[in-house]
Structure formats: C-alpha cells, structure tokens
C-alpha cells in the first residue's frame, strides 16, 4: 500500500510541476513556445520508448534468474576486495529504478552482506546502471559522452565502499515489517 501511494505521489508531483512549467512558459513566452516545447518532447519519447520496453523485460527476467541469497554470500562480512568487485558488478547489472534497488539492499543486508559492499552496490547502481545508460544516456547524449562518464563512474563505487568500511558509524538493517515498502525480487 505504501509503495502504491508513493508511485502515485510521483505522478501527481510530476504532473503539477509539468502544468506549472507549461503555464510559466505560456505566460513568459506565449502559446507558440508551449507548442514548441511539446514538439521537442515527442522525439525524446520516441528515442527512449523502445529501449525502455526492452529494459523492463530485462529487469523482469533477471529477477527470475538471480537469487539474492547467492549475491549476499559473495558480499559477506569478510568478503574484502572480492565483495567490492561483486557489488560493483551487481550494481552495474541491476536494472530498474529505486523501487527495486533499495529493497534489494535491505534483503542483502539482512542476509549478512558487508556494509562496504552494500554502499558500493548502491552507488554503482545509481552511477553506472547499464540499463539506464543504454536506455537514456546513449540515445540522448551520445555514446562518446556515455563512455567518458562510465569511465569516471566505475572506480567511484569501489572507492565509496572502501570509505564506508572505515566510517565509525554503526548500522544494522531495520527489522522486517509486514507493511514495509520492501518488495524484494523473488528468489
């Protein structure tokens, strides 16, 4: 229920901002500018839509294949560098938005994954998720830019994980709740 409401909140907020922005464009630049902006939105949608559908199918299928238990084992407390590299790769390959990635962190943490690996995973997912790069970055900003940014992003997840292991802040995963937003991928 909570995540359902949250999804609709996103849509409502975006609609409100879109309407406000459209109104502001109309007031400051006239109705022609509104049409102009809408005309520019269309090719963006066409550029992104086919890849997005493929990306969502990839996400849905991956969930059926990869058990989070195996990941957590590789990212365990004593996992050292290997745990960081596994986390970095898992982040790269995790498709989908925050509604999938954050609950997965919770599942991995409860299964005993190391803190540095978890931080590495979530940073690597946010920065370097391949699905997002292929769906959005390459079509809109070009392959050269996407590769440049990926090169800059790849080491950062590992670095963040190394820093996180040294921070003197305690964290234990919140205990399970029945009404939690966690919608963990099915094993």
């Amino acid at each position: 229920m909570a995540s359902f409401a949250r999804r609709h909140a996103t849509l409502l907020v975006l609609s409100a901002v879109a309407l406000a922005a459209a109104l502001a464009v109309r007031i400051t630049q006239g109705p022609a500018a509104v049409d102009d902006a809408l005309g520019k939105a269309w090719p963006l949608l066409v550029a992104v839509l086919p890849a997005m559908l493929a990306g969502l199918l990839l996400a849905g299928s991956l969930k059926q294949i990869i058990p989070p238990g195996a990941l957590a084992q590789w990212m365990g407390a004593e996992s050292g560098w290997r745990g960081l590299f596994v986390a970095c790769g898992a982040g790269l390959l995790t498709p989908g938005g925050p509604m999938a990635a954050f609950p997965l962190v919770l599942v991995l943490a409860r299964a005993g994954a190391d803190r540095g690996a978890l931080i590495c995973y979530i940073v690597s997912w946010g920065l370097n998720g391949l699905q997002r790069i292929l769906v959005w970055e390459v079509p809109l900003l070009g392959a050269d830019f996407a590769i440049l940014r990926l090169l800059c992003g790849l080491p950062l997840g590992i670095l963040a994980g190394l820093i996180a292991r040294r921070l003197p802040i305690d964290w234990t995963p919140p205990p399970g709740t029945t009404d939690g937003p966690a919608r963990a991928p099915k094993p």
Partner: protein
Amino acid sequence: MTGGQLLLLVLALGTFGVALWRGGEPAGKRALRDTGDSIARVLPIMLVAIPMASFLSQLIPPQLAADWLGPESGMTGVLVATAVGGFIPGGPFVSFPLVLTFIKAGAGAPQMVALITAWAVLGVHRVLTWELPILGARFAVIRLISGGAMPILAGAMAQALMPFFPHALPVMR
C-alpha cells in the same frame, strides 16, 4: 533503432530465454507479469515527465547554462553542477532530458559528468523517498559521507580524460 537499443533488446530477449529455460513456463509468466506491472507504472510517469523536462528547459535562460556550466567554467562549474545535480528530482526521465538541454545551451562535458554523478549519488529526492524509509537514516548518512566527494572527483577525472574524448560534446540531435 541505435546499436545500444539493439544490444539491450538482444540482452532482454536472451535473459528472458534463460528464465524460461531455467524456470519453465511459470518463470516466464512471472517475468512477463513483472514487466507488465513495470510498464503500467513507468509509462504514465514518462508521458508526464518528458514534456515536463521540455517545459522546464524552455524556462532555463541558455546564457545562464553557458556561463555557469560551460567548458571554460572549470572546477567552479563542476561545483555548481554538483549543487544543481543534487537537487534534480525524479528519475532518468527528468535528469537526462535536462542535461541535453544544458548541453545544447553550451555546458561542458566534465561539468555534465559532475551533474549526473551528483544526481545519481546525492539526489535529495531519492534519499527522502526511498533510502530513509527503507534503510534508515544511519545508512543514508554513511552513504552520503562515502559518496559526498564523488561528483567533484568524477568531474575532475572527466576533465583529465577530455583530450581522449574529442567527440563527447557537442551532441546534436
């Protein structure tokens, strides 16, 4: 269809095939149902978000982007981009069209690398809507400290790598 899109389609169909092969018909059905759910959730958001980004970019004075985020702005521009990126709300459907707008208005590649990194690592909206409720404040603090310097690092690295990527910008679509 671009090469990247084709690659993604092949990957998706291949992964779906593996799911079918390993889990049989039930796994295939679960994968398709999950995909359908995602489409139902994401499509309405996209249909609103892309025009929204387009309207917003209409409101950004081009000169502002060129002055503050241009290739000549150097590390100051990287810092400005970090601050801007941290406050861009929403998913890639908002951030990437906005970045495209900034680029067309004359922003530099290292600055845009910093901006996307800041959006991805520091994004305030994501911390508030997902990280705090699911993982708690301490996790968010650990992650923000660990990742705080990343946008600036990424911007500096991109600046250093620029000679090897002469075609990273401009993007003309």
